[in-house]
């Protein structure tokens, strides 16, 4: 999933319009949270999927894959909401009609909100999100932390995959006891590597004039036009209006 989403974020047609996408998603997310969920969820789902597949040209298979997995969790969650627990005369679990209504509303809200988050995640490179946050005056310490974490995640994730493969080649995961030990070895190796990486990066960046302070980078130019921003405002407004009028 890590690479699936990240690759799409860097290859879709809206990859340089992160500002407008953020505005669009903020509006749609507000709709998902504050409007009656059952009525507005279909509209939000239509808007987000249309935007992702037709607008940003994210492959439907990838988008659907990321959508289906959390929806599986939702199914269990919804079931829990349908059940009612009483212990007046012994523990009793029963189907609750009122709970079922809550479950329906929650499921609609969750599906709508999830598709909004996926739209943002699949279309916006993380480095552009960070650039926007920098413009919004989010403290530099936090941005630097996130930027470094983003870079490290992919380095360490490659190491994690390689270490686990190497352990499986030597049968390290054949039973629960050995697997726990292998997981511990992998975690310790990754920890050691994290420290070594940071130390080596420090030295590597020093040769480029780094003095231990902030990590300045040039912010990428945005490709979002005034029309993009107008659309980003219009679509959530339409969703809201339609929901409230119907």
């Amino acid at each position, binding site marked *: 999933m890590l690479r*699936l989403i990240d690759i799409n974020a860097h290859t879709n047609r809206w990859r340089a319009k992160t500002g407008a996408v953020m505005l669009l998603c903020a509006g749609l997310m507000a709709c998902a949270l504050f409007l009656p969920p059952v009525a507005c969820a279909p509209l939000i789902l239509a808007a987000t999927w249309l935007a992702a597949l037709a607008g940003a040209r994210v492959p439907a298979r990838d988008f659907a894959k990321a959508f289906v997995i959390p929806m599986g969790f939702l199914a269990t969650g919804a079931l829990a909401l349908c059940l009612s627990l009483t212990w007046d005369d012994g523990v009793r679990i029963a189907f609750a009609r009122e709970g079922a209504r809550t479950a329906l509303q929650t499921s609609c809200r969750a599906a709508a909100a999830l598709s909004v988050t996926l739209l943002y995640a699949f279309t916006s490179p993380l480095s552009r999100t960070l650039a926007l946050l920098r413009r919004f005056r989010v403290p530099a310490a936090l941005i630097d932390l996130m930027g470094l974490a983003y870079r490290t995640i992919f380095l360490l994730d490659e*190491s994690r995959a390689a*270490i686990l*493969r*190497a*352990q499986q*080649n030597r*049968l390290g995961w054949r039973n629960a006891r050995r697997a726990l030990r292998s997981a511990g070895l992998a975690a310790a190796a990754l920890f050691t590597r994290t420290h070594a990486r940071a130390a080596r990066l420090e030295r590597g960046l020093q040769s480029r004039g780094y003095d231990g302070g902030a990590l300045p980078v040039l912010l990428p130019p945005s490709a979002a036009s005034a029309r993009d921003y107008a659309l980003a405002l219009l679509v959530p407004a339409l969703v809201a209006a339609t929901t409230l009028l119907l």
Partner: protein
Amino acid sequence: MPPPILEARDLHFAWPGMARAAGLCGAQRLRALDGVSLALRPGARLALLGANGSGKSTLLLHLNGTLRPDSGVVLHDGAPLDHSKRGLLALRQRVALVFQDPDDQLFAGTLAQDVSFGPLNLGLAGDAVAQRVAEALAAVGLENLGEMPLHMLSHGQRKRAAIAGALAMRPRALLLDEPTAGLDPEGVSSLLAHLDDLNAQGIAILFSTHHLDLARAWADEAAIMSEGRVLAHDGGEAVFSNEELLQTARLRCAPHRRAQRAPGHA
């Protein structure tokens, strides 16, 4: 001729997201493997030659069952790979894969502890484990360094340590991904001498490399990979002397032409 230990038949495989990433980088490749067939016979010395990104590593990961092909099949002793947990356990005792970067494969504290990882996973008892560790370390010439912490070994020693870890499984086939990467001439010689010994004991060896000279000097047969396909697989010189083939596979670089120097910097 004995049947192959491992045989890949018409493997196709794409990494997730590969097509899209390729489009952005201006590359044409949509698949990592695009119809690969290859056989490794008992006791063979086979070099898998190919440029970076030609699909060598991906193929090796299929041969030991780490990856499953999108289509095609891998045969082990003539039977399709059993990808169940039990099937993979059996396969990996017979087919050991050693990655390019030793640091991804060494994770326990000392060299001997690391080599013992495989035998312990096999459920062997202390004595048997100790014996296998001693054997494997001796096979790569590290018998005196068992108590060394791994981070104190040189790069060449760590490369051999990773091979020792694989040998402790007592495999019949050893698949090595770029075993000489990062080694200096002496390191390469020493590694090849150890591979000679292992091969002489009957272990089939398949290694990937982009060094033509290395393959020529060491292997009995060579397979040339390019763009996810095996272009040729043959016994030695037939492959190495086919200049056109080597150019296509990007294994020969254009002879280096020095640029005109700016005056005043002589």
